[in-house]
């Protein structure tokens, strides 16, 4: 299984940038938590997570990804089954029923599910590659995507739902869809819109309303509000009451103040006032980008953003050089996952997107998010290390 490991093809620049980003993350977590007595040791814990993550990364990289195709079907079945189990026996934490109790420890199947979904869809789309131009096979792929999607949606975990949707969509498109089918699917999606609107959870709508442009007092601008009223029977208070809107958007507003406060060059590491004086909330996880922007300024934040997008770019490069369709789709899925999280998280910080609760890859504090990102990079490296070489043997 570990035969013919060729470290020459290991993507060292990718790895080094990931390591750099993780180290920057530790420094920022230190800055974000040093004034909170409960959190002061978080940067050390993050170092431990990185060490574990690196082990995972190298282990996954060494595994030949093609072995994973064997896992695809059983893994997918287990995944869907666990989502169903969560639906019936799951435990709620933070408003969404997404955890399952396995002998005393709470497990969130959706985190690992990202990869199971990537692996399964990549396998399916590459295995039936030649048949994809026929509608039934395409619809099959969509069904495999929609099944877990719907189960996550009802938990409800909006962030994970759209992550799955994006990854799955990119994978299916990257596998190749005939334009005429694409048009058909687009039409179908439009028709399904009322269903989506009808099932949209109140809190998702509330988040949307927090994001929507308001006047000084927190009233959503009338034309937009009228549109919302037309689309939904009941609107959450955040959409109607200006006070509720202002109160709910506190975290985002403070993040925006932190970013604007940073200016071009930033206030310096551990010197951001919004961050250090705790005005910025959830600053070591969801809003760590605001810490970057406040303390390192526009220049620092742009550089870090560049590094993050470099990672995506590099993984896409691996996809294009992959020895086979399965590898290509695996890497594309990984790129889509990382890219989506960056866009959604940074977009939320900059208030160009609603709040979703997705963390910033490699930088935000958190064991599961960091290790799963390292796992993703490991997958990409696994593809990289086997590129083309196969053709010469």
């Amino acid at each position, binding site marked *: 299984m570990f035969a013919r490991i060729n470290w020459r093809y290991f993507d060292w620049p990718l790895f080094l940038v990931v390591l750099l980003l993780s180290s920057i993350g530790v420094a920022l977590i230190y800055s974000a938590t040093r004034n909170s007595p409960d959190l002061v040791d978080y940067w050390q814990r993050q170092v431990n997570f990185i060490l574990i993550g690196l082990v995972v990364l190298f282990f996954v990289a060494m595994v030949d990804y093609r072995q994973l195709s064997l896992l695809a079907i059983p893994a997918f079945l287990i995944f869907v089954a666990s989502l169903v189990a969560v639906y019936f026996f799951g435990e709620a934490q933070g408003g969404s029923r997404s955890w399952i109790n396995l002998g005393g420890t709470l497990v969130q199947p959706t985190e690992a599910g990202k990869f199971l979904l990537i692996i399964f869809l990549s396998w399916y789309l590459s295995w039936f590659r030649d048949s994809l131009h026929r509608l039934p096979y395409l619809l099959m792929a969509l069904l495999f995507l929609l099944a877990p999607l719907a189960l996550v949606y009802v938990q409800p975990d909006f962030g994970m739902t759209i992550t799955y949707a994006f990854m799955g969509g990119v994978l299916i498109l990257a596998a190749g869809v005939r334009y005429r089918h694409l048009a058909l699917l687009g039409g179908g999606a439009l028709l399904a819109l009322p269903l989506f609107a009808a099932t949209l959870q109140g809190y998702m709508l509330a988040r949307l309303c927090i994001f929507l442009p308001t006047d000084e007092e927190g009233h959503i601008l009338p034309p937009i509000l009228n549109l919302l009223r037309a689309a939904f029977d009941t609107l959450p208070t955040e959409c109607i009451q200006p006070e509720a809107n202002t109160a709910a958007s506190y975290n985002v507003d403070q993040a925006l103040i932190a970013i604007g*406060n940073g200016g071009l060059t930033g206030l310096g590491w551990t010197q951001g006032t919004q961050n250090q004086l705790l005005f910025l909330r959830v600053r070591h996880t969801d809003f760590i980008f605001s810490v970057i922007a406040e303390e390192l300024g526009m220049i620092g934040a742009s550089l870090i953003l560049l590094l993050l997008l470099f990672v995506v770019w590099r993984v896409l490069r691996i996809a294009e050089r992959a020895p086979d369709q399965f590898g290509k789709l695996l890497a594309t899925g990984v790129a889509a996952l990382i890219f989506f999280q960056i866009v959604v998280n940074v977009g939320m910080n900059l208030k160009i997107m609603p709040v979703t609760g997705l963390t910033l890859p490699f930088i935000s504090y958190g064991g599961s998010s960091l290790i799963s990102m390292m796992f993703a990079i490991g997958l990409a490296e696994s593809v990289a290390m086997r590129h083309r070489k196969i053709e010469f043997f």
Partner: protein
Amino acid sequence: MFEERTVRDTANLTMTLFRAGIVIVFLIMVVRMFQLQVVENERYQALANRNRLLRIETPAPRGIIYDSNGTILVRNRPSFEVALVPEDLPFDDLDTPDVDEEAVEIEKVLRILRADSDPEVALRMAAILFNKLGYDDFIRTVQRANVPISFLSEPAFVTPVTEDGRLAMVEPRKVYLPDLDQPLPLEGLVALVKRVVAIQSMGSASDPVPILDGVDRIRAFEISEDSFRIPAVRVIQVPVREYIYGDLLSHVLGFMGPIPALAADTYREAGYTNLNEKVGLNGLEYTYQTELRGSPGVRYSERNILGVDVRTIGPVVEPVPGWNLHLNIDLRLQQVMRDALQEMMDEVDAPWGVTVAMNPQNGAVLGMVSLPSYDNNIFAERIGEDYLKLEQDERRPLINYAIGGLYPPGSVFKMVTAAAGLAEGIITPNTTIVDSGPIYLPNRYFPDDMSQAQEFVSWNHKYGIVHGPMNVVRALALSNDIYFYILGGGFPNQFQGLGPQLLSKWTELFGFGEITGVDLPGEVTSIVPTDQWKRRLFAEPWTTGDSYNMAIGQGYVLSTPMQVLVETAAIANGGTIYVPKIVHHMTDAEGGVQKDFEPEIKRTLPISAEDMEVVRRGMWEVVNTDYGTGRVARVPGVEVAGKTGTAEFCEYIPEKRDCRRDEKGFLPFHAWFSAFAPYDNPEIAIVTFVYDGGEGSAVAAPVTQKILEAYFTEISPRTQGAIAQP
């Protein structure tokens, strides 16, 4: 590597779009960051600063006030306030449900402050907590602690206050107030303090909440020494205005108090950030509020989201102490004036009295007494019960009647008529008018029926005396009314008098009908009566009788003692109307003169020196001839000129539907005396007024005499031949 497909699909395009997406996302985000961090940087910086910075003003020391000799009249005395810092109090530990650690600590603090043993402390504390919490919260908190409250028997109005302690703009409610004269038991106070602390903690837990004030220096030190036992206690020094001479100068100096709710906007616009700041509310404290206040220093306290002080930034601006005021008022003269007036008022049992002195050569106010007075120190720490007593006093001692009372001037007005007659050529110094008893003006509607004619008498007629022929000088000396009736209104077919136009013109020229402009608040004036004014007000035309009354300072003419003083000074100095000035100059904290008040001439009267000399001569004869009415005002070694006034007034009694009259049917009199001295080169002009005092010559003139005598023996002695300040 892969064989070309025959059907076009999205595979290659997706990869291209993905890469394009990466670039576009990067660009969008950088542009957005540019917008937030560069374009709108200042706005967000301001918002971030507003989050974290609390502007703290350090008040500058308020200016000191000195009299003309450099004696300190007002200074700042430290007073001490005891406050609690909520975050330094222990929390109520939930593991020990039967003990409230916070209440135990508060009780300890209150015992150290002697709230349990000293009823004064308990009362003071209850008053502060009542003001802080407001009616409803106070009652609720005490009752919840199962402490009985005694209520006042009479209901009173309370104006609800808003959360930040300002008066709410709603209708007052009628409720039974708790009797704050009954000391609350300790448990009640503990509950109240706990409540106040809880409210403060919602704002900033590191800001001290005052729970006791007016603590003297020794107690403050004792409490500070105990502070290791009670870490939450802060002893804060607050400067308090000390008026050393109390009621002697309270009408001049005024007092201070918190910014009134009605004026809050004005002060806010003027840059006052703390609306609990004490500002001058009356007297010089009010007029020179800006100069006395100086400018506060500014520093910033950086706070985190919990309101905990992290550090202090600054002082960004150092406080600039207020300017000191140096008055024209001489404390010794003021004392003499007050004592002399008070003595006479006690003697004749008069409710109000005023005496004001001024240098006629420049308008410098040398002394100003309005009785009754009040002790302005009662406002120093907190406007409380004593203030209510003052407000309810029927004599209204808070009003400075020297500038705030309007009275008929009576005969002290006759110089105006005399000067007008001479200047307008109606009379010459030799024009003779004969007093041969009362004169009668025919009734306008029945000109031939003399029984319906209006009778005008001179004061001397009731003693059976007629003065016979006289010129203007002698008319002033005798204060003969007939002369001035005819000079003012003429006599049908015999003499062309001044008439209403000229009378009102000269009344205005002498400064009646406009405020004198003295640098004190609360000055009033009446308007000068004219034909149009009377038609508008009474729908009746001006009559010759109106002119008669006006010519002797009765009828519709009303003036303040200060206006009479300005008139007197103008006669003394030969025709210059000065703006009276209480403040001579202002200095900064280093003693450098910041502002010197030049004499301010309002106008010069259009009258020749010769004519004015005739009027002055009349005033000289009042005092210095054996037929003058003001002979009691003579001062050895100094030539005094003066004028008596005995002004009838109507105190309307609704039950009688008439004015108050004595048994003979005569109206009561105000006593007036206006004077200046020395005659040749006057350096002091003075007006004394006693409400309902009776004869000016018997009541007001002796007071003036005492003051002048003291002035020329103690303050500006003649023996050295010294001429006081020009």
